[in-house]
């Protein structure tokens, strides 16, 4: 009797763990870019700056401006969180992530900021990165 009770508990825990796992995996797959954001990136209206935030390549429409500002605020919140957890400044965390964003998250056709501040279009060759990028 006692054993079967224990087994039941274990099974319930296993089921719960599986459910949580599925939920996490689901949310991971769900975490897609907003289509408007993806479009603005692909069209080259916005680009990745060296400082870890999004910037405007040309004068943006109010909708694009609002979108980018919202994303940058969200990014800053995450950078702040991680910087605090790692004993770094928000700028350092943002800059380090910016290096990675330009290197790993931009695809050919998208814009990124070169170390001299100019906007470049990503092609198949490696992007121009700040010398401080690890």
């Amino acid at each position, binding site marked *: 009797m006692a054993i079967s009770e224990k087994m039941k508990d274990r099974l319930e825990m296993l089921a719960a763990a599986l459910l949580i796992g599925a939920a996490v995996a689901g949310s991971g797959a769900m975490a897609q870019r907003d289509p408007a954001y993806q479009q603005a990136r692909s069209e080259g209206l916005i680009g990745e700056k060296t400082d870890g935030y999004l910037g405007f390549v040309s004068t943006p429409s109010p909708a694009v401006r609002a979108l980018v500002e919202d994303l940058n605020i969200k*990014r800053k919140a995450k*950078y702040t969180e*991680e910087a605090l957890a790692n004993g*770094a*400044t928000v700028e350092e*965390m943002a800059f380090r992530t910016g290096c990675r964003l330009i290197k790993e998250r931009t695809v050919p056709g998208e814009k990124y900021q070169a170390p001299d501040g100019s906007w470049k279009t990503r092609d198949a060759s490696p992007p121009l990165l700040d010398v401080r990028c690890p």
Partner: protein
Amino acid sequence: MKSIDRTVNNPFSLPKAREDYMRHRLTAVGNGAIRPNMKKGAFLFICLASSALAGCVQVQAPDKPIVINLNIAIRQEVLYRLDQASKEVIEENSEIF
């Protein structure tokens, strides 16, 4: 545990009374180590000083464009340390990156 409760946390215990008396001696006297009334004086002084200054300080907009220096202070060794953190922050929040 119980004996501690009976002494330190009891408002009428001897150690508490001694502590209270020492605090009283330090704070109540005009030239004591801590004077709570000083706070009031300092506050009043700051108010007066700032109101006096407000009358004469003028802020002028610069005629040249404002240039923001983007050369932020970055410690190289910290950038290496943030390698894993930057990877995770992108993976976990891929919708904003």
